[in-house]
């Protein structure tokens, strides 16, 4: 069962990328059924960051993350096809899945192309980390407001 919950958390992360995710507070219990609330929160912070910051940049960070860490094996053929589609503008972030990105090792240039503009990955990553600390590492962390819209 643990592996299936692990997969459910990844499926949720994928939904964050495609903007089809439920708000974190709605799925927190389901995604921590194996007791790994910390792992679930690592994804929840991306969902919350999408509400607070530029959602496309947060999605771009997720694309980078999935393309580098979802598979330990590099797949050059898969990468070639995906990179060509990105450079020709035939694929958008809402078309992508973790499986599609796994092993493709995209560069930031490809991420910028998908997002539609350049950004500073280091700074955006720092913002996510700060948000995580604000939400989950402090007892006085503000609760996630459920009324904020998820539509992008």
């Amino acid at each position: 069962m643990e592996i299936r919950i692990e997969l459910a958390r990844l499926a949720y992360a994928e939904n964050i990328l495609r903007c089809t995710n439920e708000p974190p507070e709605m799925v927190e219990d389901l995604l921590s059924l194996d007791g790994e609330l910390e792992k679930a929160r690592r994804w929840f912070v991306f969902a919350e960051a999408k509400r607070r910051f530029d959602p496309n940049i947060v999605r771009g960070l997720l694309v980078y993350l999935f393309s580098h860490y979802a598979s330990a094996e590099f797949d050059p053929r898969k990468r070639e096809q995906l990179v060509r589609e990105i450079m020709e503008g035939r694929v958008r972030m809402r078309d992508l899945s973790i499986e599609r990105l796994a092993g493709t090792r995209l560069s930031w240039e490809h991420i910028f192309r998908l997002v539609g503009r350049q950004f500073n990955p280091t700074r955006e990553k720092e913002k996510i980390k700060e948000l995580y600390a604000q939400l989950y590492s402090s007892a006085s962390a503000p609760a996630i407001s459920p009324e904020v819209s998820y539509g992008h």
Partner: protein
Amino acid sequence: MDTNYSPQQLPDLDHEQLAEFAELFAGLRQLEYSDHPSDEVLRAYVANRLLDGPGAGRVGATFRDERAFQRFVQGQLTRWTRSDVSMHVLTCGVCQRRVAQLRASHWQWLGLARPRPREEPSWPRRLALGALASAAAAAIIAVIWLWPASPPTSPCWIEDPCWQQVVQSSPLKGDIMVVYRASPGRF
């Protein structure tokens, strides 16, 4: 366009900073499945036609209610969503090969369907064609405008005209027509 992988393309700093998320994928491994998505479902997945929920832009059906989530956790899917297929293929060697084959044929089909760029003529050829067309146009204009006003070929000198210029109304070219009539007594 360079699509080859080069480790130099990866900025080490950002790569390092995102590395802490790598452990979120650590539990991934190949699983044994008794149930696999059909060819039709996989084709829809490869063509980006499979949705996460009922209707584009809706929230994923996997997390919509507890019952749907239980079905996902128990691997008893009644209907495959995009996330369901993605997670299945990520952990199923058999379906990874099926999807790779479908992607290859999909890619081939897209390659055939893509319009090929027309071959443009070289610039010297285009220059020659342009000059030829201009010369032809100039010649046609000259014939149309100059020929009717020119006197017929004559052995006469202009100082000793043997033709009379006569202006008449013309139905063909505006209101007037210039004609030349032989001077009386010259022929």
